[in-house]
């Protein structure tokens, strides 16, 4: 196995020099102060309150649906919500950690994984805050996305021992279906049930649950072993992803699967209603696909974008931000969660539901991850009360 050793050394050559010495010294000082100041807070009691809060809001929600979302060109100058309340989502019995990884555009359904760090990942759906455990085939890598009809997609490793292959699964009307294609992986689903991912290392789209995968156009040489993947799909069929050969580059595909391009893009993170969030040569950026206009974004670390072009992410260390045009709102941290790490993984189309997770190792004994959702009151709702 000397070949593996050489391969590792080749791969390690890609490493940079991560000079985090001063950051570590500051972090150690912060921890020392926090340990002296803070008393432990019971996360469990917070979780118990959450279920009641979520159930209460279910009936008063406005009707969901992609048709209700405004178009890019007529994007109204809405102001950001004023008050966002964080809630810790419940875990299932016997599990100690959870993360939200995505949700449907209305924010009613969130998907995530429990106990990721314990090598027994379990996919879940939080529907109006009520947790539902999934049982897809194989050893789970986890659920990746869900649409407003409740159709979820995810990935597993399945097959006879020693001959496992990655399989992409779909949960639709309570039934699990395995997508066609060898070594398939699914990363996103749109409101029409179109799924994107890759098949044997090549970016692909499935037009329906039972369709053969259609390979997306790339400029990769025919013999390339790994080409890339499609990671997100808009409701009109536009797809974003990444191609790793012949050069690493972001990819934008038209609904028919042919390659489109955004000049100056170096990474494309997400797509929604004709808005694309990514990174340009000059930094974080948002593109409007209809006008092809690119706007620089002053906040780094934004990871999600919604139908109105609003964005959310972790700007700077641990600051969860909701950003629209020139406005930015910092979201409150729920009480009692570890805050060494944080990730923002979901933003609803109305901008009123956000989700992600916080985590850390407060005791030095075990890492914990806590799934978190924010519900915000829009400025108009607040005013009419």
């Amino acid at each position: 196995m000397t070949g593996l050793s050489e391969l590792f050394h080749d791969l390690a050559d890609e490493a940079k020099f991560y000079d985090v010495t001063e950051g570590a010294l500051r972090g150690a000082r912060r921890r020392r102060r926090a340990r002296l100041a803070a008393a432990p807070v019971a996360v469990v009691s917070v979780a118990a309150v959450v279920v009641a809060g979520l159930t209460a809001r279910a009936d008063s929600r406005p009707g969901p649906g992609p048709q209700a979302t405004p178009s890019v060109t007529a994007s109204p100058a809405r102001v950001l919500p004023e008050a966002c309340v964080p809630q810790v989502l419940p875990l299932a019995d016997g599990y100690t950690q959870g993360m939200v990884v995505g949700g449907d555009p209305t924010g009613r359904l969130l998907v995530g994984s429990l106990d990721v760090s314990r090598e027994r990942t379990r996919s879940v759906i939080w529907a109006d805050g009520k947790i539902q455990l999934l049982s897809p085939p194989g050893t789970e890598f986890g659920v990746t996305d869900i649409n407003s009809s409740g159709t979820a997609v995810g990935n597993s490793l399945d097959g006879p021992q020693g001959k496992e292959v990655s399989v992409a699964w779909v949960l639709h009307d309570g039934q699990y279906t395995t997508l066609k294609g060898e070594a398939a992986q699914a990363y996103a689903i749109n409101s029409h049930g179109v799924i994107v991912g890759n098949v044997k290392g090549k970016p692909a789209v499935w037009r329906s649950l039972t369709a053969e995968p259609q390979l997306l156009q790339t400029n990769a040489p025919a013999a390339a072993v790994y080409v890339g993947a499609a990671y997100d799909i808009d409701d009109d069929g536009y797809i974003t992803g990444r191609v790793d050969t012949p050069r690493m580059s972001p990819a934008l595909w038209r609904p028919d699967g042919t390659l489109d391009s955004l000049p100056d893009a170096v990474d494309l993170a997400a797509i929604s209603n004709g808005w694309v969030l990514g990174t340009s040569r000059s930094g974080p950026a948002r593109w409007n696909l209809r006008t092809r206009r690119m706007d620089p974004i002053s906040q780094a670390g934004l990871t999600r974008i919604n139908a109105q072009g609003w964005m959310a992410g972790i700007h700077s260390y641990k600051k969860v931000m909701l950003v629209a045009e020139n406005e930015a709102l910092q979201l409150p941290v729920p009480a009692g969660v570890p805050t060494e790490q944080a990730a923002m993984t979901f933003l609803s189309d109305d901008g009123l539901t956000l989700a992600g997770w916080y985590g850390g190792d407060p005791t030095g004994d075990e890492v914990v991850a806590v799934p978190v959702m924010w519900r915000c009151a829009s400025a108009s709702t607040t005013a009419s009360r």
Partner: protein
Amino acid sequence: MLDDDDGFREFVRARLGPLSRVAYLLTGDHHGAEDLLQSALIKLAGRWKRLAAEGYPEAYLRKVLYHEHVSAWRSRARRPEVSILPLADRAAHTDEAADVVRRLVLRQALDKLTRKQRAVLVLRFFEDLSEADTAQALGCSVGTVKSQTSYALGRLRVVAPELAQLMEEKALR
């Protein structure tokens, strides 16, 4: 306090290169590597005075780096992170392109392992540690190291048959 900090800086400066490489192999991306390294060094800095006095900060750091990686969920995002800029800026010479592809295959394959399996492979095949030393770094038994190594290699062959081929080609040269 200043003396403690300076001692810590000196210790880390001398090891930052190799530590960066290990962190990158464990996480597979620059953000994750930086994050992992910082988390491990925060722990080291928090106990620096005692560890420096005892004379074994190195062993502690290795243990905490691997433990942080195995028990963490930090880079487990819905979308795997791969660095874009450094490679995209390079000219795509044929030899270089082959190298790029080979590294990509390994990176993709490593992403399909559990954290513990990945850590075992890095310790055994990159750091070149014995099974006993690997067990000590991971805080597990030698038996676990053996079984995890075997399962990880088996899984690599399954998820990346082309990698097994590359390993064989290299061995033949």
